[in-house]
C-alpha cells in the first residue's frame, strides 16, 4: 500500500507534501516516513495518508482561476499607494501569485 507523506518543518507551519512510502499499515508508514523524510530535513511533524484516499483535479480538467481576464481581482490592478503595510504585503503576495500562475 502506498502512503503519501506530508512534512511540517516547524510547529505552526503547514504540512506540505514531500513524497510517499510503501508500507503495509499506518504504523509502519509512519516509521518509514520518519526514516525517509524526517531524518535530514528539519521536521516537526509528519502525516501519512493512504494514496487512494487522495482526490485530485488538475489543469487538464479544470481552469483554475477561470478562463476570462480577472485582473479586477488583484490588488496590483488598482494603482494607488497601499494604505498600510498589511495592504502592501497582501499586494506583493498577489503579484507573486500572478507571476507563478504565468499570467501576463
Amino acid at each position, binding site marked *: 500500500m502506498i502512503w503519501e507523506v506530508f512534512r511540517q518543518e516547524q*510547529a*505552526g507551519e503547514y504540512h506540505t507534501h514531500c513524497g510517499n512510502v510503501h508500507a503495509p499499515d499506518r504504523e509502519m508508514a509512519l516509521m518509514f516516513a520518519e526514516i525517509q523524510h524526517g531524518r535530514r530535513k528539519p521536521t516537526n511533524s509528519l502525516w501519512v495518508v493512504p494514496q487512494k484516499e487522495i482526490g485530485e483535479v488538475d489543469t487538464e480538467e479544470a481552469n483554475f482561476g477561470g478562463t476570462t481576464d480577472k485582473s479586477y481581482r488583484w490588488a496590483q490592478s488598482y494603482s494607488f499607494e497601499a*494604505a498600510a*503595510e498589511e*495592504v502592501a504585503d497582501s499586494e506583493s*503576495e498577489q503579484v507573486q501569485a500572478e507571476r507563478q500562475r504565468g499570467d501576463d
Partner: protein
Amino acid sequence: MDIEQVKERAGPREFSPKDDLPEEYRKAATRMIQFHANSEIMGAYLEKPFIRQAPSLDRKLAFSAKVQDEIGHGQLLYRAAESLGVKTRDEMLDELAEGKGKFLNCFHYPMDSWVETPMIAFFVDGAAMRRQATLKQSSWEPYAHAMDKVCFEEGFHVKHGEAILYELMTGSKKEQELTQEAFEEWWPRIIQFFGPTDDKSTHHDFSADVGLKTMTNDELRNAFLNAYVPKAEKYGLEIPDEPRIRDNGDSTYEVVEDDLDWDEFFTIAKNDYDPGKGQIDGRKQAQDAVEWVRETLDSHEQRFAGGTQPQAAD
C-alpha cells in the same frame, strides 16, 4: 494542559487540534472566531445588493469577486472554530439565524446607496485587515492559517474600495457631497469597530494571556487612524469634528469616548438594533431556502461514509 500551562506556552501558532486544551481556552477561542466568521458572512450579505447596483461592468465584476471572497472567509473561519470541538458549523450558522450569533457593529447598519460602499470596502475592510494581519500570530494555529489566506485576498478589497472612493471624490460635486455625508455617518461606527478603549473591554485580558490575540483595541485603532486618516484627507474627505480625536503626535491618538454612542453600540452587540435584526432575518431566509440542499448533502454524506468503510479497512 491546564490554563497556567497554556499561558506559559502561549505564542504564535502554538496550539493545534492535537493539543489537549482546557475548556476555558477552547470556549474563548470559539467565541472569538465564531464572531469573526459571522462578521464575514453578514458583511457579504450587506454588500451583495451592490453587485446589482454597481455603476459599471468592472465594478460589478470586482464587487461580486469580493462578496465571493467574504463568504469564503466565513467558511474558512467556521472550520477554524469548529476544530476547537466546542460547536459545529451547523450550530454556529443556526445561532446566527436565530439572532444569537454576534457580529461586527458595522454590519448591523443598513447600506442604501453606492456612495456608502467605500465606507465598508475601504475603511471597514482596512480596519479589519489591520486586525487580521495581527491575528496571523494567534495561538490557535487553524485560526492563524485561515488569516494567511484571508490577508492574501484582502489587499484587493481595500484597494478596490479605495478606487471607488477616489472615483467618487473626483466625480461630480453632488457625488462628492454625498460621499462626505456618507463618511460622516459611517465614521463613528468605523471608529467603534475596534470596540471600547482597553480598560472597558471585557474579554481582552484572557485572550491576550493565552495568545489568541496579540494587540489591544487601542493599539489597533491607533494603527488604523495613522494609516487611514491621511488617506481620507488625501481624497478630500473632511474628518468630522465628533468624535473628537486627539493626535498625540507620536502615532497615538485619543478618541474622546463620550463623543461616541455606546448605548447604540451595546444595543447592537446584543443584536437588539432594528436594522441589524432585519439583516439577520434576511440571511435566515436565505439559509431556510436552501435547507433542502443541506439535507440532500447530509444524506449523501451518510451513504458515502457507509460506502468507504470496507475500503478503509483493507
